[in-house]
């Protein structure tokens, strides 16, 4: 019987193919096996081609076996292929292994100076409270630095601000290096009408003995809020928001009376020590409180000097950037900020 012979042959092919598949070592060999047993010139193909001459019944019988054998071979080929792929990646995992613990190719990264970081942080808090920022000249007139700020010549408060003056060829009041950022209050109010809400960061200088914590050239940031209806209570609230954003959500803010010629009432602003929470530690020098700035209600004489209606109200405040940064980062001496030791800068 031709059909039976054919079936027997197919079974032989299947057996042969199964052995050949297992011997195939790579994808190319698997392809050759596929060609040999399932390709156009394969025994399976020629039996398939011969089916046309068979009776309907034989064709159906042989066809069933043929399909079965074909599926069997192709499935074993696929299995073999999958096995080969797996072992290939397993081999690669060993052969192509790298040391993932070697340091990465890190680009060298520099740092923004801590005093800039602190300035930006302060500015951003006040920007969030509706303030703008402005910067002004470091060399100033006597008017802007003192006179318009209710500090006339021979005012005792001038001795708190020992001043550097510049040599000039001309007569008249010599230019001076501003002793605080407060002259920006005068400049802004002389050029803008209320309401004004501003912070002014910048360099200043005082003619003082230099120590590790007291440098002739340093930086301050000043704030000014002038509008009808501004109160001392608003100053308190604003500075408390600032202090808590800057140093910690839960700390306490205390204000003590102080004296500045250009504000009245004037205050020194303290925060509860964020290191020891008022238990007393080296950061707060055992006092539990840390002074962070001076503040007060703008003196009407300042409003008069800049041509504002003296019935308006406003508050002003000012703080030393180095001092805030020293506190914030726990830096032992302010001089470190100006030495620019790379190892110091890299810490920020």
């Amino acid at each position, binding site marked *: 019987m031709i059909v039976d012979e054919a079936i027997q042959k197919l079974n032989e092919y299947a057996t042969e193919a199964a052995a050949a598949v297992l011997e195939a070592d790579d994808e190319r060999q698997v392809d050759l096996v596929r060609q040999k047993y399932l390709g156009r010139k394969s025994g399976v193909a020629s039996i398939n081609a011969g089916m046309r001459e068979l009776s309907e019944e034989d064709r159906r019988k042989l066809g069933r076996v043929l399909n079965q054998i074909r599926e069997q071979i192709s499935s074993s080929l696929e299995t073999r292929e999958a096995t080969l792929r797996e072992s290939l990646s397993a081999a690669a995992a060993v052969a192509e292994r790298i040391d993932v613990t070697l340091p990465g190719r890190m680009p060298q990264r520099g740092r923004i100076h801590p005093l800039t970081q602190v300035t930006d942080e302060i500015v951003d808090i006040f*920007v969030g409270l509706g303030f703008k920022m402005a910067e002004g000249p470091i*060399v100033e007139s006597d008017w802007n630095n003192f006179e318009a700020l209710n500090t006339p010549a021979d005012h005792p408060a001038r001795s708190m601000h020992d001043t*550097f003056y510049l040599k000039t060829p001309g007569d008249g009041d010599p230019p001076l290096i501003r002793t605080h950022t407060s002259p920006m209050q005068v400049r802004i109010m002389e050029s803008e009408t209320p309401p004004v809400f501003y912070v002014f960061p910048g360099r200043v200088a005082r*003619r003082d003995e230099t120590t590790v914590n007291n440098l002739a050239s340093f930086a301050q940031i000043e704030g000014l809020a002038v509008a009808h209806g501004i109160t001392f209570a608003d100053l308190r609230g604003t500075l408390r928001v600032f202090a808590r954003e800057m140093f910690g959500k839960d700390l306490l803010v205390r204000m003590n*009376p102080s004296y500045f010629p250009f504000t009245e009432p004037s205050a020194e602003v303290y925060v509860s020590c964020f290191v020891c929470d008022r238990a007393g530690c080296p950061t707060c020098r055992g006092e539990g409180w840390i002074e962070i700035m001076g503040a007060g209600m703008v003196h009407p004489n300042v409003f008069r000097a800049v041509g504002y209606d003296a019935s308006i109200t406003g508050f002003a405040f000012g703080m030393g950037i180095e001092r805030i940064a020293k506190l914030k980062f726990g830096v032992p001496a302010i001089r470190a900020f100006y030495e620019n030791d790379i190892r110091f800068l890299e810490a920020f």
Partner: protein
Amino acid sequence: MRAPISWLKEFVDIPFEDAELAEKLIAIGLKVEKIHRPGDQIKGVTVAEVMSVEPHPNADNLVLVELVQRNGATRVVCGAKNFEKGDKVALASPGAELPGMPRLEARKIRGEVSEGMLCSARELQIGDDRSGILVLPQNSVIGQDVRETLQLDETIFEFEVTANRPDAMSLIGVAYEVAAITSGAIRLPEFGSVSNGRTESTVEVELQDTERCPRYLALEISGVQVGPSPDWVQARLRAAGIRPVSNIVDATNYALVVTGQPLHAFDLAKVRGPKIVVRRASVGERITTIDGVDRALDPDDLVIADFDQAVAIAGVMGGLETEVSPETTNILLESAYFQPVSIFRSVKRHGLRSEASARFERGADIEMIPSAAGYAARLIAEWTVKEPRISNPVDEYPAPAPQRSVSMRVDRANAVLGTSLSVTEIQAALSRLGLEPAAKDGEVVVEVPSRRRDLSEEEDLIEELARVTGYDNIPYTLPPARARAGALTRDQILVRRIRQVLAGGGYHEAWTSILVGPSDIQRAFSNERWLTVAPEVANPMSNEESLLRPSLVPGLLRSLGYNVARRNTEIRLFEVGTCFETTEAYPHERLRVAIVAGGHWVQQWHGPKRAIDFYDLKGAIEGMLSALHLTARFDPKSVDPFHAGRSASIALNGKVIGYMGELDRATVERLDLPFAPVAAELDLTALLRIAGMPEPPEDPGRYPAVYLDIAVRVDEGVLAMDLISTAREAGGNLLEDVQLFDVYYGEQVGEGRKGIALALTVRSPERTLQEEEALGVLKQIEAALEKSHGAELRT
């Protein structure tokens, strides 16, 4: 201002512990700077009685002293002999602690054991006397701690008094503040009368400058015997920070501490006339002050003069010649008012501060003058052995100060403070300060007492109200929201971006001083121009800080040197900051950005160790500019302080805005550096003005590009920039980009020549290019390079 608390308690009741008192005084506006307890430094010193004094067997100048102390007899070796059997003395036993001395131990002195030592007044810090040991009062109790016997357990508050509070420079003034806290009453001392003197004064007083000295009171006290003041007085003065001098001077200082009115005692015998003239110093006049310094007086100085010359700088310091001495028998006591400005100027001019000037400078209480004089006179009478005669005063006060009143609108006070205090509440608050506020038409009116001459306008009363109310009893509110946006300007944002880009590229931001010295500039630059450009400080503290920086580079090079000295080997710094340039009047101020770098990049495992060089710096600058949408042109340019062949100008839109380069050898030597750093400085003010906006391409090119390379050989001197711009021009519209990707030298290119390789991107925005078209562009470029630069094609 130092206030011994036990002394303060004479004038006001204090129902608080020291710490609580300090806190309350701070809250009301008297800043307690420090709390001193001098007795804390003395431990283990007790009262002992001398039983016998025998000569030391081995030393003529020493004695052996047998004593009875708390727990029996003991023996010490002593160098002083000013005591005898039965005297009570201060014995420091082994283990005792004294200020500034090591802990005491028993030891042998010249072969004899000494169980401790006997203390002098100086060792206990209650006097300067070190000639002998301190003999205690007979009624002292054996075994008692001397801190108790001598009342050394004193607490002293040291106040930092602000310039506006002359009243707080006295114990009475502090007492008023305490009373404001406790709502208590003040006990003024018995001042003593100055109007019932037994003799008429022989002194004539002439005020030549009544503006600067509106009142001068002189009192003659005759028949005094100068000597030490009582121990308790000396102890009090010392606690108040004042050195005891003599009964006379101590009395004036005692009255000063209590009343705040400075007084001065002259030796009347040395005051010629006797006449007192208060006048300006004459030209060329000199005085030797009590501190022994000979000073040239300025015609602006107010002086106290006698018949023919200055005997004191008014309100600042007395003259040596008329100083009270042990021989003095008659004195002239001065109690006067001097205008603050006058004192302020003299203090500044002579660099001379005193207890007196600190008070006059803030403004003393003109009505306190007679009381303070009477007080001091009474104390002198009490503290001298002989009963002196006190004259009637000569009180020159031609124009008595009028009584002033200040008013405060209740509405205004509440508007400033953010409170809603009633008239009654305000009156009650101000009353606690010893003021007597009256209410009238929505205003509170205060008759200003002479001791509070700082109260002159409405704001002063608002501040008084605020501090008595307690700042911390005023609420926390925020300014009403308005149609205003807090925001940074474009320039402020760009400056921040510049910092971020440079830091991201490996450069650390530095801050250097705005003050530099000529040597910083001379080390950084060889050109003297920089020195003349820098604005000069007229009154520098030191040469090192005598100029405003004309450039950021000197400061950054100093920081670089500091890092080199600290053995840092990888230094990349930049700074953004203001620089100054002298003009006729105010200096020009420009914002600049500078970079200074040197040493090596940190060596990593995947690459060689590499020095930081010109191209690192140039890349950093290009990166910074690209963040501002700018492309600069770098032209070779020899600029101080750079290597002539390794420096460039940096131009934007044809305008030079900065320079960069490697420092030349001479500069590197001047700075004593182990390598040649690179540096750049750009005018940031100009840069911000030009800074561009982002320009996204309309169509980023849908069609594929053709990528072609060109390799040419040219003379070494041909600039890369020129090759690239020739290529760009020759490439026409289809040439999208040219990148230089290789530079090489060597035998195959020949002596004096270099090889350059360019990568071209050729693309049409309209269609896919044929290879021939792209090659056409390449050929044009090759031809142009050959023609313009003598380029030779490499095959």
